[in-house]
């Protein structure tokens, strides 16, 4: 079985986000970019399935600017086999919406015929939490989102999902789309020899046009603003003082 893993290049999760003063967006020029943390988890899970003999090839896809090539290389260094880079934008500030991403991924799935797609549950830049569900819909496949455990058993997958009330386990027929939550696994670091090897692994270069997908946004971003900042508070010297203050504020 082949596993397809879509990986997104996003601002590194440790970087402090700066909103541009003119309201036109977030400053991404000369900012450290990394693979979306959830996607690292998805890549790790796919590699583990391959190591366990449940899959024979792990293919990565990234859609966006050409620099997303680096993101694919990072995943190849972890152990994935090959990549597909779909260039769909020139400017690093252009975000391709989940619906357009899902349409491109559908076209790739039609070509590649994977038995499983594992992706992140959420991109930490747009915080949409949508692409996996959209892809499953377009393919007419079942979906298992927010996975914290995944077991491939024959022609189905048993997935434990992190839901509001606790955990839910479902069984989904393959092929299916699974989206990874934080506790699915802990991704490995790429070793130096693997980073070198990854440079030689094949990466196909495509464009959104090759798949006939219109990536024009459906949601126009009118403006981007800073969230309201909290007023600086005060330090209290003791538990007694804390209790007094909270009572005075009517909080307890």
């Amino acid at each position, binding site marked *: 079985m082949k596993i397809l893993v879509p990986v997104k290049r996003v601002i590194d999760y440790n970087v402090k986000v700066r909103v541009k003063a003119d309201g036109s967006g977030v400053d991404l020029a000369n900012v450290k970019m990394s693979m979306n943390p959830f996607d690292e988890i998805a890549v790790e899970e796919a590699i583990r399935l391959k190591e366990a003999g449940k899959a024979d090839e792990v293919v990565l896809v990234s859609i966006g600017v050409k620099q997303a090539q680096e993101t694919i290389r990072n995943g190849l260094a972890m152990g994935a086999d090959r990549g597909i880079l779909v260039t769909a934008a020139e400017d690093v500030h252009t975000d391709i919406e989940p619906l357009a991403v899902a349409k491109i991924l559908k076209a790739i799935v039609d070509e590649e015929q994977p038995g499983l797609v594992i992706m992140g549950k959420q991109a930490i830049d747009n915080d949409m939490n949508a692409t996996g569900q959209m892809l499953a819909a377009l393919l007419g496949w079942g979906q298992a989102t927010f996975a914290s455990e995944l077991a491939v058993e024959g022609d189905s997958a048993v997935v434990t999902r992190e839901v509001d009330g*606790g955990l839910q386990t479902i069984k989904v027929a393959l092929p299916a789309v699974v989206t990874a939550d934080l506790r699915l696994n802990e991704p490995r670091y790429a070793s130096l020899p693997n980073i070198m090897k990854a440079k030689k692994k094949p990466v196909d270069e495509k464009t959104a046009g090759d798949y006939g997908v219109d990536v024009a946004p459906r949601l126009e971003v009118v403006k981007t603003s800073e969230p309201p900042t909290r007023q600086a508070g005060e330090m209290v010297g003791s538990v007694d003082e804390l209790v007094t203050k909270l009572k005075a504020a009517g909080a307890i």
Partner: protein
Amino acid sequence: MAVLLLAEVAGGDLHIDATAKALTAAKALGEVTVLVCGPQAAGEAAATLDGVAKVLVADDAAYANTLAEPLADLVVSLAPGYSHIVAPATSDAKNVLPRVAALLDVMVISDISAVIDGETFERPVYAGNAIQTVRSKDEKKVISVRTSTFEAAGAGGSAPVEAAASAGDKGLSSWVEDKVDSSDRPELTSAKVIVSGGRGVGSEENFALIGALADKLGAAVGASRAAVDSGFAPNDLQVGQTGKVVAPELYIAVGISGAIQHLAGMKDSKIIVAINKDEEAPIFQVADYGLVADLFEALPELTGKL
């Protein structure tokens, strides 16, 4: 404009708080029909919410476990009558709404924090470090609502309740089991007071200190991701960018450093208290009252003095 509001149903009961908060956002968009996928009684409960024009009840085994595929098919079958499809941004709705949107060939608008007009909304991005105002060009809007930023609609309604036809189940997935954490404490997303513990609490046993303070205050218990990952607390207590988003009257963060991913889930709380032994901890930058102390001394003392 006509709005279809997908009610939150858990274990066969209407989740009134989440539904009533999303209803407030939905009412700003037009006349609201509430779709309840669950028993008749849950539908009748929804009918008592103020400002509901009609309730549709889909009481079918296919919807009992909130599986995304049959639910999405049902919502899509009803979609022609509505300009907006809205739901509270719960894990169930986040699972199903993007699927609905893709089937309708529209973009989903996730986690809105404000309604500007029928096609313009605000939503937090980058873990709440920026707020985007987006205008949808799609004919139909599919929207999930960040419940922590909307007041719950009140009671006093008496809307008619009708049955909705099932849209069947293609059997792409099936339910195996639920592991629900049973606790007598208030639920995180509707609690007025929350006491949250982080890695600093140190162990599952020590987490009882958090519980003891919570019980004294009638509060819900929350946790940072580090506390959940370390096994101190179950996953459904995680507050943050990728956990639950809360905005209680009082949030007490104990042994939590204040990473942006955690702040994303609680920085709209009315009053924030931080107890941390490190005076440099970033949580103090958002706290109204900060106490630099060892939690193992401060927590029992605080619980004792309340």
